[in-house]
Every structure is written in C-alpha cells, then in structure tokens.
C-alpha cells in the first residue's frame, strides 16, 4: 500500500492508495519550494556528482560556514542538507565519510537507511538520491550543531543524558560528539521519518496506536531513568510509518527528576497536608467578597515563583504552567496526550498558545473553571477567571474530539483512544497515566479494531457537496506558486 521514498529533507512521505495523487499535490509543490531551489551552477555541478539533493542557498551557506569554522569536519562528514532547527541547535543531514572506520553498533537503523535508497516511484517532483549501483551506499548521519551560546553545562547535560539512555528502545542513540572551541557537534543516526504535519492527517486509529506505542516505549525507558524529556512533541519524535517505529530525539531540555526542585510544591505533599494548607491559606481566610478578586497588585515587589518551564508552547503540562516546583516525568505524559488529541481531533497544532497565559486559557476552555481551580490549588495557586468563553464545567473529551474532528459519532476504536486521551490529559499529575500505565491501557492491550480509513485524499477538502470547486482551487494554488 504505502511505500517510503527518500525525501531530501529527511521527510518521508507516505504514499497512500489510489486517491492519493502525488503530482497534483499543492503540498508537494509547497514542500519542494520549501526544501529546494536555486543552486549556483558551479556548486550544483560539484554536488551533483554525489547526489543532487536540492538545498536552499541560505542553508548551503550555513553549512559551508560550519565546514569552514569547524576544522576537519569536512573530512569526516559531507553535509547534505539542513533537516531541523531546534531552540539550541541546528541539525544537518550528512554523509558519514568514515563510516567504515568505526564500529557502528548504534546502527540499528541500517535497514531503514536501506529503504531510503529504494528507487522512488517516479515522480517528477523528486529526484532520486544518488545513482543506485554507481557508488557505495552512502551512510547518513545527523549532525546536531549546538549553538555556541549554550553553556558547557547545558551541552554536557544533554550528551550525558543521551549517553545514559544508550540502548533504550526508541531513544535516539548518540554516536559520538566532538568540540572545537565553543562549537559542539553531536553525531546521531539519520533516521528517515515522515513529516508529522502531513502524516497525521492520514492516521487511522491503528496508526495512532503504533505511533503512540513507540513513543510510549521510548518514554518508559526515559522515565525509568528518572529523566524528564520536557519537550515531547511530534517534531522530536521521528516516526517512520513503514517501520511503525520512531525515535525520540532532542534531549536539549531534558533533566533528571528532582534536579530542579527548589522547594517542594504543594502537590508533592499528602492530600491531607495539602488540604489543611489550602484551608489555612491566606486566600481561604480572606476570600474576595465578590467571589473574584477585584484586581491585582500594581507594582508587585514580591519575588516570582520560579520553576522550570522549559518546553514547547501548546505541549506544556498544566503543572508547568502553574509553575509547579516538583515536576515529574508526568509532564511528558501530558505532551503525549496533546499529540493524541492532535491525532484524534485532526488538528495540528491543536493548541496555539503564544505564551503560557494563552495556553492556560485554551486549556481552561476545555476543562472549565471548576477543574482548573482544583488543578491550580494542587500547586498552591488560585485560579480565577471571568472570561466568558470559559465555562464552569468544560467539555468531555469525547465531545471535544467529536467537535474537533467534525464527526457525529466516534468509532469504537476512537472511543477507546479517547479514553486513553483522558488518562493522559489528566490535570492532576499524580492521576495521570505513566508511560507504563498507558502501555497497559486497553487501547494497546485489547485494541478495538473497528477502524475506518479516515480518508483517501489528504488534500481533498472536506466540504462535501461543494467539491466541484476543489479542482480549480488546487490549480489556483499551483498557479500562484
């Protein structure tokens, strides 16, 4: 059914059955334009010998710069393209020139690499990687160049955690790392994966199951090591739908549980302690007369509550937003929930929070004030809002998923997934599923296979009844390119 093809930017695209018409894809156009374009004639011919991955000019400059400023790197790796940018790093795809000189125990992905070099189904949009048969199979790695403004401690943290996690299933292994002055480059396997932005729209519940199983497996290992990843999101989980496996990457924000604890958060106490503290709190003794605070201090000289809030907007757990000082590995589980919500709700990103306050409001729109108040109180916070679109009771997950995905009824398997969702997007971190618990959920252990294909043509507009315009629209878009 579906076949993987190599894609320049490490993007694997899923080819779906008949209705999936590659050439007409605006998305393909889009991708190509994004990924490729104008290469100097000299440069192009020089590169063409080896491969003809099209590289954006600015990316090329960027890569040249790395090659120029990092002595010797050019002889170990041939930079191919930029495949990602994190907050603290840029990731390049590179050919591992000295692959054969080393032991490559890490290379459990050889198979995946192999697949990548399969001749792609002919598509005029894509050029084929290399010229098969002409030369030795290139070995690709991912070079993660950590920004020079990162402290040695931060870099060490990331590399150390990765080193600790070596051998864990679905966690990206660290091949090696080296430094030149302030430049540090980590060498990681290049893992062909699909682009979530495209992928999620084709996911059936069964696909979600594979995706989540792999992700949760990775997290189970990570959490067993008492490590919080802190930045679980689709871009940090490289999923290969063909292998039905993914790898968890980017431990740049990861930390050991407890390493950040400054003072114990209220949520870390026994329930009865918590209750009595809440009852004896200033707020409980001085509740605002009108039920809601009238205002807030103008020139607040009090110190801020400090807590690690590292993460990505839209994926931060509620306790992170509440600045809980005793965050646990459960914050990653929330993020997994957000991914599942994205998949079930067919919307990516689901949350679009410019900042934590927006995130809180979005979250509250779902959960309602009552549950948010309880959640806030766990961490010693008072939640107050009179924003009219935030209801008191919020919505059930099932309702939300239905609305979001615009269906009237959920299939059995969707309902099952939604129950898992509820366990993941649980406001109370102590009640939220752990990775282990999640993997024991009926969604994985007793999967309901009442699954229906979500749709054929991901580009097809969902507006049934008015379809006749769609063809034109796409032509329109192509023309606009």
């Amino acid at each position, binding site marked *: 059914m579906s076949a993987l093809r190599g894609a320049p930017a490490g993007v694997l695209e899923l080819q779906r059955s008949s209705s999936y018409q590659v050439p007409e894809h605006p998305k393909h156009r889009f991708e190509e*334009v994004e990924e490729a374009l104008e290469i100097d004639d000299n440069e192009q011919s020089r590169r063409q010998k080896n491969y003809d991955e099209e590289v954006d000019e600015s990316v090329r400059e960027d890569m040249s710069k790395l090659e120029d400023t990092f002595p010797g790197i050019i002889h170990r790796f041939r930079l191919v393209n930029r495949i990602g940018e994190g907050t603290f790093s840029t990731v390049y795809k590179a050919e591992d020139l000295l692959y054969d000189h080393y*032991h490559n125990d890490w290379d459990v992905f050889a198979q995946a690499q192999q697949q990548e070099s399969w001749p792609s189904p002919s598509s005029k949009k894509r050029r084929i990687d290399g010229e098969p048969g002409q030369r030795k199979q290139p070995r690709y790695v991912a070079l993660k160049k950590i920004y020079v403004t990162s402290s040695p401690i931060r870099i060490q943290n990331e590399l150390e955690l990765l080193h600790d996690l070596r051998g864990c299933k679905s966690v990206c292994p660290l091949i090696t790392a080296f*430094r030149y*002055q302030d430049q540090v480059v980590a060498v990681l396997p290049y893992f062909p994966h699909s682009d979530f932005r495209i992928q999620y729209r084709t996911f059936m519940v069964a696909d979600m199951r594979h995706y989540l199983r792999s992700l949760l497996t990775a997290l189970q290992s990570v959490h067993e090591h008492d490590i919080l990843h802190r930045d679980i*999101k689709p871009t940090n989980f490289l999923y290969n739908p063909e292998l039905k496996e993914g790898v968890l990457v980017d431990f740049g924000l990861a930390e050991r549980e407890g390493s950040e604890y400054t003072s114990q958060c209220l949520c870390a106490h026994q329930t009865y302690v918590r209750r009595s503290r809440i009852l004896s709190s200033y707020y409980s003794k001085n509740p605002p007369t009108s039920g809601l605070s009238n205002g807030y201090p*103008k020139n607040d000289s009090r110190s801020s509550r400090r807590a690690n809030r590292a993460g990505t907007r839209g994926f931060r757990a509620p306790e992170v937003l509440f600045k809980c000082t005793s965050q646990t590995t459960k914050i990653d589980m929330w993020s997994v929930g957000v991914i599942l919500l994205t998949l079930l709700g067919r919307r990516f990103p689901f949350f679009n929070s410019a900042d934590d306050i927006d995130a809180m409001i979005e979250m509250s729109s779902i959960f309602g004030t009552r549950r948010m108040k309880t959640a806030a109180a766990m961490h010693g916070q008072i939640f107050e809002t009179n*924003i009219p679109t935030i209801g008191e009771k919020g919505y059930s997950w099932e309702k939300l998923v239905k609305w979001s995905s615009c269906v009237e009824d959920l299939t059995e398997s969707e309902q099952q997934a939604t129950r898992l969702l509820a366990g993941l997007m649980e406001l109370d971190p102590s009640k939220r599923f752990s990775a282990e618990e999640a993997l024991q959920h009926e969604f994985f252990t007793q999967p309901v296979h009442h699954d229906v294909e979500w749709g054929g043509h991901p580009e097809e507009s969902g507006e049934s009844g008015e379809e006749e315009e769609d063809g034109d629209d796409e032509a329109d878009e192509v023309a606009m390119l």
Partner: protein
Amino acid sequence: MSTRRPLANVPNATNSPHKAGLLPAKRARSTQMEVPYGQPPPKKQVTDSFEPESRSPSRAKSTVQQSTESRLFARRSNNANPSAFEKKLVAARDRERHPVVKGAKGEKPSADTLDTIRQWQRHYRKAFPQFVFYFDSIPEDVRRKFSSQVVALGAREENFFSRTVTHVVTSRPIPAETATSPTDESAPTTEANGDANVQTVNPSLLDKNAGRRDQGNMDVLQRARQMGMKIWALEKLQRMITTINDNDISGHHDAASRSKTAGGHTAHGKGDNALSRVLRQELLNGPSDRDPLSSMEMQVFKGPFIYIHDMNEKTKPVMVREYPRVAKRQDGAWPQFRSAPLGKCPFIDEPPSRKEMDRQRMRQAQKEKKAARQNAEETRSQSKSVSVTANEKNVDTKLVTELSKPQKPFEEQTNTATHPEITRKPSFEEAKERKSSESFAPPPIPRTGSFYTGREPAASGVQPSNVTSAIRSQMVSSTAGVPGAKAGLSKEMHGLKRKVLEKETGGIVTGSMAAPQRPINGSSLNPSRAQSAESNNSAKPEKRPREDDGYQSEGDRPKRRREDEKNQHQHKIPHKVQHKTQHRELPKKPEQRRRDPKPGYCENCREKFDDFEEHTLTRKHRRFAQNSSNWAELDSLLFELQRPLKEERI
C-alpha cells in the same frame, strides 16, 4: 551525575526575562505625607507590635493628642529623645501591656485609658450628626455600606460635592495641605479643633474658590482642601466608625480582634501612605490579616481577566492578564474556540484566504439563486447577511488586502445557519452531519496560520534567545492584533512588525517559499500596504527565521573568524584529516543580503546580545571559547563518547 548543575542555576535558564518584570518593580511609595487629622486611637499597631490583646483605643489621651501619639509610635524606632509626653505614653502603654502578656483574658485596661476612649467616643458621637460626608472615588457598594453607617451615627451623605460638605472620604491619595504645611505641633491642634467644632467653610476660602471657578476642572480633593474640608481616607472613616461604635470598651479579646479587623494595620501618623493603601485595600477588598498584599496598590480589573496567584500571596501572580471588555464574547481577544477549518488549530481565528473567499463568493451566488426560489432559504440568507456585516468588521481589522473584499467566512455561515446552538460551543467549519469517520474526508491542507508556516512551535521557556520564536508565535496568535491587551509584549510585537516590514520592503522574498497563497503577494510592491498586511496577516509565513536571522547574512564577518580559527589547533578530530582543510568559496552574494541580527542570550558570557553573529566574535566570547578550563568537564565526557575505531584502523 555529580557534575551536573541544575539548569535552574544557569542564570536566565528557566525564566525568560521578557516574561515578567525585568526590573524588580520598585514599590511605589509616595513621598506625599498624609496629615493625620484627629486620628482615632491606634489599634492594630499596638496589636501588631505588642500583644494580641492591645486595647489601643485606650491609649488615646484626647483627640488633640491623637496624631501626636501616632507619630510617636510610628517613629519609636528611631526617636532618640522622647519627649516627656512620649515617655508618659510609653509608660501607659507598658502598663497596659503587661497584664495582657500575662494572658488573662478579659483583663481590663486601666481605668484612665478606658476613660480616654469613652471621652473620645462621646466627643465624636456628638460631632457626627453635624458631619456631611461626600464620598470620592469609592466603589458604589462600599459607599453604600459606609453611607448607611454614617447616617446611623447621625451624619448625612451628600451625593454631590458642594460647600455643605464637611468631610470628603476618598480612596485616593490625599493631597498635601497646601496652605500651611503643618508642623508636628500645630497640625494636630488645628485638626482636632476642626473636628471638634465642625467648622464650616472658611468664607475667605470660598471666595478664593469662587475666583477660581474658571479652573473648573480642579480636583475634588484639591478643592476640598482649599475649602478647608476634612479629607479622610476611607480607612480612617472605618476606624472612626468602628471605634465610636465600640461599646464594649471594657474589652475582651473580641474588641481587640474586632478593632484589628476593622482598623487594619500598623504604622501610624505621618508617612503612612503605604498604610493608607493597605487600609484602603482592606476596605475595598475585604479585611485581611497580615495581608501580604497590604503594601501594594491594586490594579482593578475592568474587563475579562485570568488571574492565577499564590494562595498565600507570597509570590507574584503566576499569571495575570486582562482583556478589553467586548460586547460579544466572540470578539474577545483571548484564545477561544473558533470556527477554524478542519486541520487547523481550533483557537485561531483566521480570515478566510482569498481562495476561500472566492469560493465563498461562488457559493454565495449559488445560494442566492436558490434563495430566490425558496422562501425558507430566504430567511436564512437574511440571517446570513447580518453576520456578514458583523464579520466584515471583524475581518477588516485583520485583513490583509483590498483585492478581495472579505466576505462572511464559510464556516460561520454554515454554523449560524444550521447550528445556531453550537456557536457558543466549539464550532468548526465542517460541522455538517457525518455518521462517523467512515465518511470523513480528510481536511484540506491548512494554508494559513502557524500551520502554514510549516513549522511547529519551537521549544521555549528556557532562555531569551528563543524570543524569536516567541515573537513569531505572537504573530500567529489570534490575540496578536490587540495591542495593549498584552502588556509587555507590545514592544516585541513592534520589533517584529518592523522586522517583517523591513523584509518585505527590502524586496527580498525570504527563503524560497514565496508564500504561494498569500493574497498580498501582488501588493507587496507597495510598502505601506505590505506593512499593514504583514503586521496583520497571521498567515504570513515568516520562513526560517533562524537562517534569516544572521546565519545567512554574515557578509563581511566570517573571514576574520575563519582566520582566527585556522590558527587554533583542532580538537577531537583525527589529525590526518586536518591538513586538507580548505575553504570552499562562499557564493558571493551581492550586497542585498542584509544582516538580520538575531538577538538572544549567551549563557557563557551571561549577557544578552542583539546579534548572534556579532556576539560570537566578541573578545569576551572568544576568550570563553578558547579557555579550555571552561570545557574540561565536557571534554572528559566527550572522551567517553569517542567513537570506537575498528581494530584494523588503530
């Protein structure tokens, strides 16, 4: 590992300085002195300083001495030479305190103290009926409450400021006395007399005021001051009333606690604007005990808000944001469920793309044809046109281009037409009935919004260097178009807009993705249009900010750096490859490659920078980079991470 330092210890690692007050907010402390007029006996102060019992009213010697006493207590920490009178007071206080310390409940204060209080009470009970109060800047509910209390004491309230008013009660800072800035000695006397005699307005002052009528807009408090009226802080009135009404002056703990509640806090006498604020807060927001908010002036919520704060008020609120009040909640600037097309974030309110609008127009036309035929349809389209107008207004603020007159977005149409009850709930474009996902057609590719930029939000919350991404996300946010709604962000917003504008007017199509669906493409030749479009159009894909921000545009700089680094011996790279180091020619780009500095924070130099490239070349940064002692620990880890060579290669 023992070597790891929690990241929280890295300055700025956890909290972006852009998030909350970068500078420690200086507590506003007005230098303006409040003149103590006939202060009622101090209560809370004693309570706080000494013992819970504290019969503070009992310490009042007379009305005349009120403020003197207040000052005494207020200054007791630093007054070197107490006057005889002060000593006496202290003695009285001590005398009174000791029995209390012994803890006997119901211990009675000394008779003469009680006497003083009773005297004070008698005086004011008599005086009150002649008072005419005017409440200035007092919330309605509070005013009503106090109005009834003063009326109960025989005074009356004047609804409008006039000459008949004798006392102005205010929640605002009380203006300094202009005429005579009272000295320690003179003020209490005159004031006390004032209170005692219930002076009417000094005619000469009235004349003066009459002469100044042209000033017209003079503040009520100023005028009251000029007219010799008493100006009381609300909390003072509260204390007065409480004390006057305190019949149980033989006192139990009750009295003390009651007075504590009522009288609030501490510090008396002069320089107690902070106190006034405290008390005002207490009155406005309810009584408090050891109120941590006491010293802070409150910003009152006017519109919808979200406020998440510490239950013990020990720390700054974790979140507070207020939004402008709106008539219809859909117009609210906060994130809310919008009717976003499937596939798109449900919280983004997006104007329809040109294509959508074209489609929309066609659809509209078709529907109108139909409507002509069907009566039922007619009513429907009428309701539509209503929302068209509403929506146009809405869209106009965000959009984009004149090329396509915004029409009612399709999704709203459907929803309002067919699912009116849903509009209060999350309403999505294709809210059409579907049996299940079986018949579900996949969503169209989102062509606008953050999705369209083809990027996921980047991780943040760690250090300010990710301001860029935060800013960008601001762009896409549905709330982005509301300046002022997010205090503190607007600056970044401006910076962003400027940046975007520069890009646009520079005629450089950033990256290679020429924003295919961007309807403004054609109009980008016109800078001003482009600007408005850019700043408003959340759909604008600002592609690859990082490469735009510096990496691609170093221009004249890299050479120097390269030379620098050539001289450095390399690290960790097999030696044999080093000699081959050669420089590939950078394709020389003409001058238009402007620098687009990327601001951020350098954890190593512990400083913020405006330009990443520039910063990495600074002496400070280079020195850090070249000092191997900074890297020793990392290097030992890197040593462990060395890639194992195959035997034959060794």
